[in-house]
């Protein structure tokens, strides 16, 4: 956000260490609640990446949605459920090693794919990168991407109605409890 591309490097490294470190902590923490908090901090780190990429609008939504809502829901669930009931820990070194190896293979293949694809050329010219203007995003959403926006809106509205239908309780009607 501030300074040129050369200023961002130490900040980038700090945010990267924070994000990856807390992500590992989220997996490895003994207490589930600390794992959930680490996950929230990791999401904050991702918001930091968006800020570094000159996309403050996306960064703010990342914080509002992921830290403000998703992390709260996860912590809420973790608090109400006993750890023993949730997991039977099967921890042995083979599984762990296999997991890490699998993760490295996936990351390496994804990276190779990205480097091989046409996206590669765009990574070089940071100097010409412009701030992603949220007004432009809004304009595009209502013009070029309007059909996609309408479909998304209908999907979300449908899922909200479905959630209401699922959460609706028949036995509440019998109690005749006034709510206002």
């Amino acid at each position, binding site marked *: 956000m501030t300074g040129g591309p050369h200023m961002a490097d130490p900040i980038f490294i700090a945010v990267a260490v924070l994000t990856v470190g807390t992500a590992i902590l989220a997996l490895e923490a003994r207490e589930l*609640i600390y794992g959930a*908090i680490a996950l*929230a901090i990791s999401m904050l780190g991702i918001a930091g990446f968006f800020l570094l990429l000159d996309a*403050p*609008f996306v960064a*703010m*939504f990342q*914080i*509002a949605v992921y*830290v*403000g*809502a998703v*992390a*709260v829901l996860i*912590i*809420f669930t973790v*608090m109400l459920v006993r750890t023993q009931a949730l997991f039977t820990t099967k921890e042995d070194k083979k599984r762990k090693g296999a997991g890490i190896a699998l993760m490295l293979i996936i990351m390496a293949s994804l990276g190779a794919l990205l480097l091989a694809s046409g996206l590669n050329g765009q990574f070089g010219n940071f100097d010409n990168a412009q701030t992603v203007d*949220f007004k432009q995003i809004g304009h595009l959403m209502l013009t070029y991407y309007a059909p996609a926006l309408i479909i998304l809106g209908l999907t979300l509205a449908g899922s909200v109605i479905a959630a209401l239908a699922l959460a609706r309780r028949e036995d509440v009607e019998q109690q005749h*409890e006034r*709510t*206002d």
Partner: protein
Amino acid sequence: MATYTKNFRFGEFVGSLIWLILWILIIIALVGLPLIFIVLFYVPLPPVNGQVLTPYLFLTMTVDPSRTLPIIKYMIHTDLFRITTFPGFTYAALIAAVTIFIERKFLAKMQLRVGPLYAGKIEGILQLIADGLKLIAKEIIVPSGADKPLFWAAPIAFVAAAAAVVALIPAAPTWVAANVDVGLLAVFAILGFFPLIALLFSWASNSKYPFIGGLRALHQMIAFEIPFILSALSVVILSGTLNLTGIVNSQITSYWFIFFAPISAFVFYISSLAELERIPFDLPEAESEIVAGWLTETSGMIYGLLQLGSYVKTYALAALFVILFLGGWAGPAVMPVELIPGYTGVQIYNHTTADAILWFTLKVFGVIMLMLLPRGISPRIRIDILLHTGWYKLIVLAFINIFVALALIYGGILGPGGLLVR
């Protein structure tokens, strides 16, 4: 009666004082002065009267008034001053302190009581300092079985989040610590931290009343978050910007948005009461039901920090109301153009900024009084009514004004080139 220790000698007392002064002088000479000079070499210093201020001359120059003023002027315009002092934390904390005192006296007068009376002769004006000293002196008791790291971290995080909201609030033209393009969104993003902190703190207390209070806080804040954001949305539509300074400027060039979006202002006011856990929405700390809610296990400065945080948050939300609906710092010019007539030296005083600060502070106090008012007259509401209000009524009300705002924009009344835009 004060008692002396048995082998007390006045000479030894004086001797110990002299030793103390000697040690302080040695430490200042060996550590303090070098530290000041190291800092001065790294801090950029302003030119004074055409002469570059060097660290060697700093101490001699600061005692000369004609040279002190430029230095003060330079210091006022640094980012550090903005973050720590004027639109930032000290200003907010000062308003928070005044709010606590006003709240106690104001509610007392409403209910025909006297309120704080004894500390400081005149109307208990020193009550706040006495309370603060008491809180600092009290022992902090951490409950057994509490999650210690979270128990200590949550109050600090609470104050830090409140201060982060304050950093985004402009108090006068160009006087803001962080002038970001997406200021309003940033405010709501930070406000999302508060339910998380309340929930974590209540869990860390390892006690059932705090936990019930924490769950209530979570329900309440999430239920009112959506009408809160929606009510600000109509202002965004009317002004066409998310930048808080931009929103104020668009009200200066037309009219205050409370005239165009009164329903939004009402929804915003109710939602901010719920967000602040103030009566009638104080279910998370309902003292007659669940001891003190999520604050039950707090003592000493942990309680002090949470109180400070919540009153700083009160200032921040009142200031946000002023910025969104009451035209921010707009107001008639009342301050004198010159403080000292005929003075032609370095100017620190700027009458437009002084006007802006005056009107902004006055409006903020007006809104704060409005937020304090329900505490004197209203009982606490039931939780199902609270959730019903948040999820059903306020969201619908907020939508009404969004459509009004859209009609005003598309009807050519407001917005670029509108009828009512000067």
